């Protein structure tokens, strides 16, 4: 069965097209769906039901302008109007991917890190807050894949593999209250929830600019304990083909005639989750 992908958008979402294309290039049946279509605020023929999709993607952008904390408005709107459907969607083991603003939304919704019942039931256990530089940062990042096999979005990627994809955000610093910091990091490690961490060109955990936002523990992406929900700040859809990479021209000569088939590191994430869905 060909997986169906729901790429959610509202006003201010701005990475939906390239995210849609990433899935389409891999043969998935992807659709860009406005939140209004899911909550029924449109004409009958435009309505969509989350149940009919295998994967929900919240792409990058500035949902509703992000004039308050990034992702907060869309998170509140989804929780308010679509809370039950989302819970059922997750319950059925359907994966959710949040890229950049999508990651911020998943954290604001309380789905990430999503430690669950044995932790105090608070909506939000972490935050993605203002970059240490206090500026928007658009730059290539190197991220090391650290997941031990839990995350369905990276099962096709070797542990320890260093991948390159760009980030572009003003609020991407993964942050946990100081009192809980140690325990939460331990939990993330124990539950195999850490997926990507920022490293430098030698593969070492490093500070700015390699860690573009000052993220705690160099965290670039995490999943929920079940491994079905992934949020990450860098943009895999901007690293789908080799020619999107900031250094492609340094390798173009060796590649020579095969250039047409060359891919970037981001593609592996889309491939992995599609493989997961296809084998389910």
């Amino acid at each position: 069965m060909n997986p169906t992908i729901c790429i959610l958008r509202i006003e201010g979402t701005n990475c939906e097209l390239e995210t849609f294309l990433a899935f389409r290039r891999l043969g998935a049946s992807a659709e860009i769906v406005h939140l209004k279509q899911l909550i029924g605020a449109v004409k009958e023929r435009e309505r969509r039901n989350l149940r009919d999709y295998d994967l929900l993607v919240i792409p990058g952008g500035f949902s509703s302008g992000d004039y308050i904390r990034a992702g907060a408005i869309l998170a509140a709107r989804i929780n308010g109007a679509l809370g039950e459907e989302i819970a059922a969607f997750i319950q059925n083991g359907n994966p959710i991917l949040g890229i950049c603003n999508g990651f911020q939304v998943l954290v604001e919704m309380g789905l990430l890190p999503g430690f669950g019942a044995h932790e105090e039931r608070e909506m939000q256990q972490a935050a993605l807050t203002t970059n240490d530089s206090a500026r928007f940062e658009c730059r290539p990042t190197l991220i090391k894949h650290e997941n031990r096999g839990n995350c369905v979005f990276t099962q096709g990627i070797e542990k320890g593999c260093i991948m390159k994809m760009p980030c572009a955000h003003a609020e991407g610093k993964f942050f946990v209250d100081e009192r809980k910091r140690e325990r939460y990091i331990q939990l993330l490690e124990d539950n195999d929830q850490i997926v990507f961490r920022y490293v430098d060109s030698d593969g070492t955990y490093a500070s700015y600019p390699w860690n573009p936002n000052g993220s705690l523990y160099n965290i670039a992406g995490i999943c929920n304990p079940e491994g079905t929900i992934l949020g990450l700040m860098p943009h895999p859809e901007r690293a789908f083909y080799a020619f999107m990479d900031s250094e492609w021209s340094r390798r173009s000569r060796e590649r020579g005639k095969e250039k047409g088939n060359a891919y970037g590191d981001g593609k592996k994430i889309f491939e992995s989750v599609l493989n997961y869905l296809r084998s389910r």
Partner: protein
Amino acid sequence: MKRVEVGITDAEDEELKRVSEGMGLSLSLEEMRRIKQYFVMKNREPTDVELQSIAQAWSEHCCYKSSKNVLEAFIFGIEAPQNIVVIKEDAGVLEFDEEHAYVLAFESHNHPSAIEPYGGAATGIGGIIRDVVCMGAQPVALVDPLFFGPLDYPDEKLPEEVKHPRFLFTGVVAGISDYGNRIGIPTCAGMIYFHEGYVGNCVVNVGCVGIMKKADLRRSMAKTGEVLVLVGGKTGRDGIHGVTFASVELTGEEEFRSAVQLGDPITKEPLMHAILDANEKRLISGMKDLGGGGLSCAVSEMCHAGGCGAEIHLERVKLKEEGLSAWEIWVSESQERFLITTEPDKVDELLEIFEKWDVDATVIGTATNGEENTPQIRIFHEGEKVSELETDFLLSCPVYVRPREVRMKEREGLVEIEEPEEYNEILKLVLASPNIASRDFVIRQYDHEVRASTVLKPMQGRVGKETHGDAAVIKPLEESYKGIAITSDVNPSFCKLNPFWGAASAVDEVCRNLTSVGAVPHSFADCLNFGNPEKPDRMGEFYECCRGLGYMASSLGIPFVSGNVSFYNESAAMRESIPPTPTILGIGLCADVRECITVDVKDVGNFLYLIGETKEEFGGSEYYKLRRVEGGIVPRTNPEVLRRSMEALREAMGKGLIASCHDVSEGGLAVTVCEMVLGGDIGASIDIAGVTRNMRNDYTLFSESNTRWVVEVWSEEARRFEELMNTRGICIANIGETIGEKRVLMRDSDKKLVNLSLEEVRKAWIGKIG
């Protein structure tokens, strides 16, 4: 009472002046007399709406009354097979491939940015995106050339009403970052230039490139019987008199803050989608964005273009606040609005699309021809007729041939300065100068990769070691490898000394940048920023710059397709005009983006060559500025040599001989080499002995002569490269090679000049403008 009449038919000159001033019309006495005559003939008094409409239509900003004859003489009318719609609309439309066209628009937003930098810059982006969307195109790239006073300008020298360059700079960059990033269009090219002449009046230019199917092209034209629909944001008091404000000198008074519009990218973003969606469904006949002059200009220009009139009902316009008078609704420049014309039977379907995107859309009137011979625009407000004007009169804007005077500030010959004994220090100072140092911290505040189609980024090279690229390259279509190369440039210091050769140099540099990445220069847009055209020396600068641009572009056969003129860029407080600033936005096409060349050197053991001739041209150079001397001639250029050099260089690239390429501009050969090696994080050993004969070393290293590039040639291809360049008659000099040691070494035969580590070079270049 909605109708307000203004008694002018009996008015004396003094009274006419008072009316113009009191109503904020910015019309001259001569123009007021013409209006008076018209209404005497009509045997009635004008209404406030009518006077405001005329003031908008006759503003310098809308009708180019001071510049038209010069533009027609030099800039317009360069024929090229790629032209589809050029000059006539807000954006130029050019052939991209058989099925697609690209769209190019370029504008200034200087006065608003000088008063309110954050909002001014943001709405500048909003406006230029609308210009592209209203042709029916999807915007794919933004370009932001910016010009400010020195960031370290002493506070005590600054007049009270002038805002500090650092405040303006920070605000403008934040405005672009906040608006551009939200709207989801990559800001991938631009420039930042510092010069004392911009202290009183900064210059903020913004360009946009779009892509479309040729079949989706829409014109800004209304036809009789069509329905006029206003879509997008609500109308308010923000941005009243933006165009008339842009058509006088800056006085620095805060009262003009109301002339700065407020931007809202989160209204614009769905608006853009809704329009492109509706256009694809063939529900739009014509459209125009509401920019300067608001509804007044959009309705009258669309009607005039289609030879019809219109009937408008202002009470239907959705307002931000109650109590706007008729004229305010009519001329408000509130952002994020378009005027759409559609056939009556398509209105419902059109409105439904906008509803789906949560964007307001309101039918405000119809295009009529009426019974008259001359079409009229009739405006009603709550049932009362508040304006009735013939479009022919409304758009019969005066055209002036302003007196001009050319004062050549250039002084020939070199100035006596001592040759430096220590080249390491002088090179570091040149690298750190404000117009050369790294722009990394600004560029990274702009999302230059959203849409995932930026194949060559503005910063190029090894990750963490990136250097300035010459041009960005966008791959606009999913199904094609064809690319659009984008760059913008001008050297205002050259233009100030010699406007003709300064402007010609801008075209040369834009062409060099495009060629550096392997693109064929294809079209230009021009944003012409000058002082008060009523002053003959300013007009002389404008005239000479246009002549220079026209000379180069027509010799090269590359058309100017769109742009704008921004006059009155001077502030009373500083008593001076900005340096002439004819900013050029250049577009080139690349057959296959995967063949593009970047700036960063690629490997150890490759050869470095300088292409082009190095001359003693130091007028306006960064080297002279650093040495605090004035004089010298600005670089000359020869379009024929430029054309041959570009062709030969592209041929070498096509044959796979070139590993990296960078044009030589500010700071000369020395800076070019440094930028290339920084990006590759690979050292280089340079010998300048073969570059010039009998020229001093500092002149050879820092000359800014035009039509030059440095190329890195793959080690095994050096012979083929030399042969190719020799057969094509292009002057080249082997200047050295890339080396394993991470150092920059420069010498003249046996004389050692520079010996610096890459880290020392990088540290100097990253410099201090942050």
